[in-house]
């Protein structure tokens, strides 16, 4: 990605003005879409389209089938009263950034962009920040003033504490009474089983869940040289390792982890997307929304 791109997180992070960043990204992003239909997060019915074998049967219109004996699927369009929760992991591991942007900064910017985008679509958006505990809980609303609250909360966000995703997600899930869209921004540095159990809890409560897995480039490249003494940002534990010797095994383990997470999410009907903190926002949003 070009460094002078307005979607470049390395550039945007220098502005330290989240509303501006969100507006810049969203407007730039939307204008770049031209006449593309905004179907992303909407749930309101728009039209019928003939069923193509292999499509999700959830959207098959059985009433039309009863009347006409033909298969049609329902096509939805934008809806303005969607409730969405953005869950931002603020544990210490999120404070890692091998380059100009930490995962937390990236997550904060991404949360503000998504908030702006949803409010702009008349959707209600809320914010939850957490580490081992829930640090901030803002219920979803669709007003512009509410959006300012979210920005304010995001700007104050600081990393701290260890990750305990499974526990915290379960707790948050109990606090969300109505069916909502849950967007988790985290580096998922916790036990995989706990994470999936936590996310499944949302699914059991009929929430739609999207996991945006944030990783620093160093985490999936390990670009160090020689012997390094690694210190865990959360536990403070130290490990001495010769990077040339461990890199291959590390990358393999990391890939296995990502594959496993992706597979588990798929099995639990959880949307999963991984992004690196050096990936431009428009590119991420574009590819992600397109995939939806």
């Amino acid at each position, binding site marked *: 990605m070009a460094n002078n791109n307005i979607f470049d997180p390395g550039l945007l992070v220098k502005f330290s003005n989240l509303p501006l960043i969100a507006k810049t990204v969203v407007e730039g992003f939307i204008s770049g879409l031209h006449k593309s239909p905004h179907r992303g997060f909407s749930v309101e019915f728009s039209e019928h389209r003939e069923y193509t074998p292999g499509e999700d049967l959830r959207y098959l219109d059985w009433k039309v089938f009863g009347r006409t004996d033909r298969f049609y699927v329902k096509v939805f369009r934008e809806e303005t009263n969607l409730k969405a929760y953005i869950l931002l992991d603020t544990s210490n591991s999120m404070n890692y950034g091998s380059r100009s942007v930490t995962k937390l900064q990236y997550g904060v910017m991404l949360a503000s962009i998504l908030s702006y985008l949803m409010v702009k679509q008349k959707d209600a958006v809320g914010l939850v920040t957490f580490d081992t505990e829930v640090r901030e809980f803002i219920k979803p609303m669709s007003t512009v003033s509410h959006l300012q609250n979210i920005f304010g909360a995001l700007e104050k966000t600081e990393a701290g504490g260890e990750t305990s995703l499974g526990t915290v997600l379960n707790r948050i899930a109990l606090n969300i009474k109505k069916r909502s869209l849950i967007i988790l921004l985290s580096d998922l540095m916790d036990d995989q089983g706990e994470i999936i159990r936590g996310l499944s809890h949302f699914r059991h409560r009929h929430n739609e869940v999207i996991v945006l897995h944030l990783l620093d480039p160093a985490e999936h*490249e390990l670009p160090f040289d020689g012997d390094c003494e690694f*210190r865990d940002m959360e536990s403070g534990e130290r490990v*001495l390792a010769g990077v040339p010797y461990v890199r291959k*095994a590390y990358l393999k383990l*990391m890939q296995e982890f990502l594959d496993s997470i992706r597979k588990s999410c798929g099995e639990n009907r959880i949307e999963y997307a991984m992004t690196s903190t050096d990936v431009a926002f428009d590119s991420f949003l574009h590819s992600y929304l397109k995939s939806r």
Partner: protein
Amino acid sequence: MGFLYPYFLWALAGISLPVLIHLFSRKKGKPVLFPSLRFLKAARSMTGRRKKIEEIIILVLRTLLLFSLLIILSGPVLKVSSPFSREGHIIFIVDDSFSMDASAGLSSSEKLKDVLSEALSFIRKPARLALIYLSGEVFPFTHNYSEAASFIKRKDISWQAGNLPLAMEKALKMLEKERGDKIICFFTDLQKRPWNDVSFPEFGKKNVRFLVFDTGNAGINNAGFKRIYFIPGSSGITAEIQNWGDRETSAEIAVSGGQWQKTASFLLKPGALEAIRVDIPDTTGRITGSISTGDILSADDNYYFSFAQGPGEKVLVIGDPAETFYIEKALKAVSGEKREVVLISPEGSGDIFPESYSVLFVSCSGRLPEGMAEKVYRYLTEGGSMVCFPGNRVLAAGFNRYWQPAEKFIPFLMPARLKSVKTFAKAAGVGETASFHPLFLPLKGAVHQHTKTVIFRQLFTLDDISGDVLMKTSDGLPLLLEKKIGRGRVLLFTFPMDDTWTNIHYRPFFPVLVNNIFEHLSGTGADTFTAGNKVRMNVPYGTEKVHLYSPDGEKKELQKNPSDEIVFFPPKPGFWTLEFLRKNERVEKIIPVNVDALEGNLERIEIKEISKKIAGAGVTVVKKEKMREFLSKRNRTSEISPALLNAALLLLLLEIILINLLSSRKQGKTDAQNKL
């Protein structure tokens, strides 16, 4: 291996540097904050062992590299395969037989010493050296080479033939329990003779190297005495001279004894044995022969010979005067007063010392004192002689019993046992005689002319004849018998000198016969002995002291062993003299000692023959002219830095390759850094 600049080796302590670096680098790494160590810890546990191995390889390479560089700086030099300077044992077997003196003047005693000294100069610690001479002397293993050098300087070539098998056995025994390299170096003229009895079929299993340093020359010529001997009854000696070479050569022989000298010239054909007869005026005393042929070995050009010495013309006659009267007269008839005849009665013969006389005449056997037979036996074994007439009144049984000494190992001394007295009805005459026997040889076959008037009225008949019958009656009854006892002889007449028995003592033939008997018994000459060989002989009865005089007059006392024997080894040729002392008497015995005549044969042995005799040894033969070069090559010192330098460069290259291999794994990292 040695070093030109050994002080650089102190820096080898610096080898600990890479080890320290290794340990140091292991303990410290760049501090890096990381979100989670979960995968790093797992990855490290998966790859930690491989990392350790690679680190150890790099450590070893670095250590070797440093080691190589320091060794190069120290200037290493390699001493190539020097068996003379390694941990091991070297034995010089030195052929000091007198043939070593025969190399056209090139391999004399001094030359041999030079060769040995030069070889010795190549020996370095920790090798140990021993010397074994074929003449028998041994210098045990030592690190003190200067002492060995002194020993070499003192030791001249001997007059002996040398015993190579014995020397080899000694050497192998000395090496048997030793460790390290084992080398036998044989310094020899490659003369074939010492190898005759050498046979070591399992030499190869003994792990001993065999080097032969050839100090001789091929194609050399030699002639020498084989022996000189005297034919009894003749007036001369015969000298046998052998031409060992393959060239005809003229020679001159000179035989001298006392106041006279005889010379003769002759031609020696290649390989021929010539017998030269030299008439001599006197058959007593010492005779020295020498030949001059212009050959290259002088040791065998001289010969020492003697007739019966010591007692000279001294004769002891034991018996009643009536019986011995004619014997005394007959002994003196030919030689006049020159021949000393001692008469003694049987009763007075108890204290006699037979070795003082050249011949004993005994005519009274029945009344001899006790112990006389044992005394006579010792006298006979050392070359003495006895002529025995049975006494007039002797009984056969008593005679036989007397001459069978009590000591079991002593045989019956007479040529036959007396049986009984036979009286002839008609006097018998002399019949057959052993005309070629030295007793009758001077009569030139005309014995009968001398004996035709001799008659016999009575005789002793005989049993168990164990000697030679020299004269018989016309009826074939033995009259005179001879038997050898040791180196001496016993003659037995079967009758006494008595008128009732015979008239032989009246006849003119009798002094001739007695004189011939004396010449025969006393003139055979002493045996000759060989230098270096053992001389063993009985000492005369009653001997209290024995002295040995060398040809140079050096005196040495010899000790008798319990068997009344003396044993000695005359080391060089010449006339050696034994002196036996008993009370106030002194008896002298001349021992002519000559070199081993066969040692004059300088024929050389082939290398392949040596290899057969010491099978499996892998024999190396080096000419003396090439010895220095041979030993220098084996001690060659060469600088080996270039080789080490190459090794160091190779190590460096290996390390670079290894480090590059490791670096290639960091490519991902490099790419990531480039992005930044």
